[in-house]
């Protein structure tokens, strides 16, 4: 059954509503939690799970208002996003993490990955490259959570620009530009890994 058919079953109530809710939960809950944890790293796992759960409950109560003009995830996503922003307001937080003081020493950080220039690329170097990229990507995500979510959603989860534009609350064109620009920024973030491995 499609998401629209399931929401109609929920609106009818009774036993079919239970099965429909359960199915929608299975399909979307974990993906939505991951997406919003990517986008809002300042929130803990418990907070995101609570917010997404409560938002799903609200969506089930309002199931009769879902007309299928957008995807169910997009429709529910707007409920979740508002709930998150209200939660951040209420707890007086902004969506960024403070960068660990030990990592402000860029040179010390980069020196970890300096390899002898003459040594050819080995499995060990590939492992180090992988670690370097992981750490740099994590730092990029801390500073640019929305960008990292957008890149993850589009290039890993195949979310199209139309849906992404709704998630990011931007126009279609602005979303494409944003993703392209942030990918270039990420590239710049990752450059030190290549330089130090002499590729």
């Amino acid at each position, binding site marked *: 059954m499609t998401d629209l058919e399931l929401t109609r079953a929920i609106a009818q109530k009774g036993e079919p509503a239970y099965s429909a809710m359960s199915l929608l939960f299975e399909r979307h809950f*974990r993906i939505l939690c991951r997406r919003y944890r990517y986008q809002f790293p300042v929130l803990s796992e418990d907070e995101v799970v609570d917010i997404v759960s409560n938002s799903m*409950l609200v969506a089930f109560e309002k199931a009769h208002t879902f007309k299928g003009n957008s995807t169910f995830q997009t429709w529910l996503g707007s409920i979740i996003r508002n709930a998150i922003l209200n939660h951040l307001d209420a707890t007086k937080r902004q969506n960024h993490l403070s960068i660990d003081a030990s990592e402000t020493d860029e040179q010390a950080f980069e020196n970890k990955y300096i390899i002898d220039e003459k040594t050819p690329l080995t499995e060990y170097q590939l492992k180090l490259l992988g670690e370097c990229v992981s750490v740099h990507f994590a730092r990029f995500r801390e500073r640019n959570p929305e960008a990292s979510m957008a890149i993850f959603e589009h290039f890993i989860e195949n979310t199209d620009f139309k849906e992404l534009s709704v998630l990011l609350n931007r126009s279609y064109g602005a979303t494409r530009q944003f993703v392209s620009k942030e990918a270039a920024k990420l590239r710049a973030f990752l450059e030190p890994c290549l330089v130090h491995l002499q590729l």
Partner: protein
Amino acid sequence: MSENEDATATQWETTLAGENSSSTSLSDRLLAKMTRDAMLEIGEQLTPSDEMSKRAWMNIEEKARSRGLFNEKQGLLRWFRLDKFQVRVAFAMMATFVLFVWFTIFQVRDQNDIVVLAMRGESQIVIVSDANAEVPELVSEIRGLKLSPNIEKLEGGTLVETPWVINEDTEKWLKQKGFKVSKDGKLRLFLKSSAPQ
């Protein structure tokens, strides 16, 4: 990787390499792959565990049950698959319609032409033009009475409903006189106490 994943991976390589790159070098491909792996790894870490998902579902289920989301709709709600708001709207519309018809009937009745059919003593027996009370005996009586040659239209009167049912003959007679006979067969009579002038 599936074909779709291959295509996305290639797209990611090109994007990361930069818009002006016509092809990707080994380093570009390596970087793209490592970043992709890093993103997937973080994605895994951020995805709730099975245990957490199960707890979240139990929580939702309990709250949904307490809010009556699983209850069968009752009565009208069940038969007509309406929610509470729709039922309220339907009842409001029905009530408005009933009130409209009720007032319309009174208005029509008040404006009906009342025709003097006969006179009897000090009472004027009048029959409403769309009279729908059947009084075979009364009609017979009326038949036996001297009919006024000039039928005059009067307004007002006291409404009296009679329990008699119109039979075929009476219906025919009334229709001949230009009266409409209603389906439920009752004749309404207006009795005026004032003496005829």
